[in-house]
């Protein structure tokens, strides 16, 4: 009997990014573990999608598969209708921790990806400078990471990712290493940055409130082996237009309770 029922790729794909019939198994000498089963969803251009699920359910695995860092047991990823089978420059990845290189200045950290791809930093200079100016980091380009606060470091990490102009951003619990107050402020700020830049975003988080406050849709995964349990559409009325403000919307609590129930079925 086959481990899983791999399906063939479909044809009518129009979204920015599509995850189609992804299965993932981990093998060890003792046997294998099913991590992901039959994951399919798509993300539209400019959409903010969050993935929540119990810890250890394979959220980060899914993100790594989308990023092309690991190959799924079967299934495919499409971006702009093209099959993605390795790391793509259309995708940017932001980690839980900022992973800034302590031995490099802020500027050198930001231009890291550009240098690795053998591109000329001069081509990106204007773009980076405007990002730095907008987010209040222009005065710090010659500073070193250990001279910055946690929130500033995370913003530098974001600019490092944005510098290469990716179309889709993958965020792996990007705020979980920050203290609560900084976390609320930075998530608000980064949300604005991403909207202004018109990025398509997939964020993995275990924080339900964070997911509700930032996303257009929330995908709830089940316990391992992870399946998609439910997809929630999140809409708030016009007056609650930022992640911080929408927490005041009465709808917020209702979304929270529904997702909470779905997670603890």
């Amino acid at each position, binding site marked *: 009997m086959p481990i899983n029922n791999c399906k063939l790729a479909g044809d009518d794909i129009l979204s920015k990014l599509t995850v189609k019939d992804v299965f993932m198994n981990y093998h060890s000498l003792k046997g294998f573990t099913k991590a992901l089963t039959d994951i399919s969803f798509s993300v539209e251009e400019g959409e903010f999608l969050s993935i929540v699920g119990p810890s250890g359910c394979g959220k980060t695995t899914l993100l*790594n598969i989308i*990023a092309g*860092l690991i190959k799924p047991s079967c299934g495919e990823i499409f971006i702009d209708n093209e099959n993605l089978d390795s*790391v793509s*420059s259309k*995708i*940017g*990845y932001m*980690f*839980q*921790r900022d*992973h800034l*290189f*302590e*031995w490099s*200045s802020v500027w050198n950290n930001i231009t*890291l*990806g550009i*240098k*690795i*791809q053998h591109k000329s930093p001069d081509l990106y200079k204007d773009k980076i400078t405007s990002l730095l100016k907008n987010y209040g980091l222009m005065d710090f380009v010659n500073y*070193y990471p*250990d001279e910055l606060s946690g929130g500033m470091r995370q913003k530098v990490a974001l600019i490092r990712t944005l510098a*290469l102009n990716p179309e889709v951003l993958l965020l792996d619990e990007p705020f979980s290493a920050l203290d609560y107050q900084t976390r609320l402020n930075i998530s608000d700020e980064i949300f604005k940055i991403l909207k202004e830049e018109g990025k398509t975003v997939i964020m993995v988080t275990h924080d339900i409130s964070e997911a509700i406050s930032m996303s257009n849709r929330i995908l709830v995964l089940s316990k391992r082996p992870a399946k998609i349990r439910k997809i929630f559409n999140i809409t708030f009325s016009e007056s609650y237009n930022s992640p911080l403000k929408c927490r005041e919307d009465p709808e917020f609590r209702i979304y929270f309770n529904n997702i909470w129930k779905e997670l603890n079925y």
Partner: protein
Amino acid sequence: MEGVELLMLDYTKEHQVYIKNINTRKKKIILTRLIILVAFFALWEIAGDLGWIDPFLTSTPSRMWKNLIKLYAEGTLFRHIGITCFETILGFLLSTVIGTVIAILLWWSDFISDVLDPYIVVLNALPKIALAPIIIFWAGNGMSTIIVITILISVIVTIINVFHGFKTVDRDKIRLLKTFGASKFQILTYLIIPSSIPTLISALKINVGLSWVGVIMGEFLVAKEGLGFLIIYGGQISQLDTVMVSIIILSILAYLMYEAVELVEKKLTKIMLH
């Protein structure tokens, strides 16, 4: 306003007291070190002169001084020192470079590092000096043998330490570079080596000590010149003054070389952290 000024004044005063205490402690430490040194040599001298110990077996500082002057007058002192220093520095540099290159190779290929693992364990446990007779046959009765022994003694430890340093680099940082599409060589040069600088420096520090061991061992076995030779030669002709003088010079040189590495460390850390 007066109140504020008064408060400021108090802070400055408190700070001055703090600085003063630290400086006094520093001075006390240096003074005590000097007293121990002087007392040690004075006691040695007195004990020898008064016949509490036999100066033939233990020498005395004054006899050592005379011996030093004699060596200097013969014009061989600096030649011996120079040769030993040259061998040590060369052995030290070569084993550091070779060890680091092999560590990079092991990091590059998991297959190679898994295959070589038991061999490295055996080579690390083996007393390298046991290989000396073979090396003398292969490398001849001279300086090349001393260098080879020195490299053998410190290279395995270098490989193990540096490789371990490479392996402990944060895997998420490697993942980050991979999302930029970095090649293995780029991961090595952009991440692995810079973040392993502290490990490399501590490997250098261990190597300094081991290189001295290697060189002196080597000189015991084959040399006609150098401080190790002086020590063995002095022993053979029952000239313990020469032996003691050589040992003291050796201590000073080893100390200076260690300090030099520390200086390099400070410089490098300064560059690394801006």
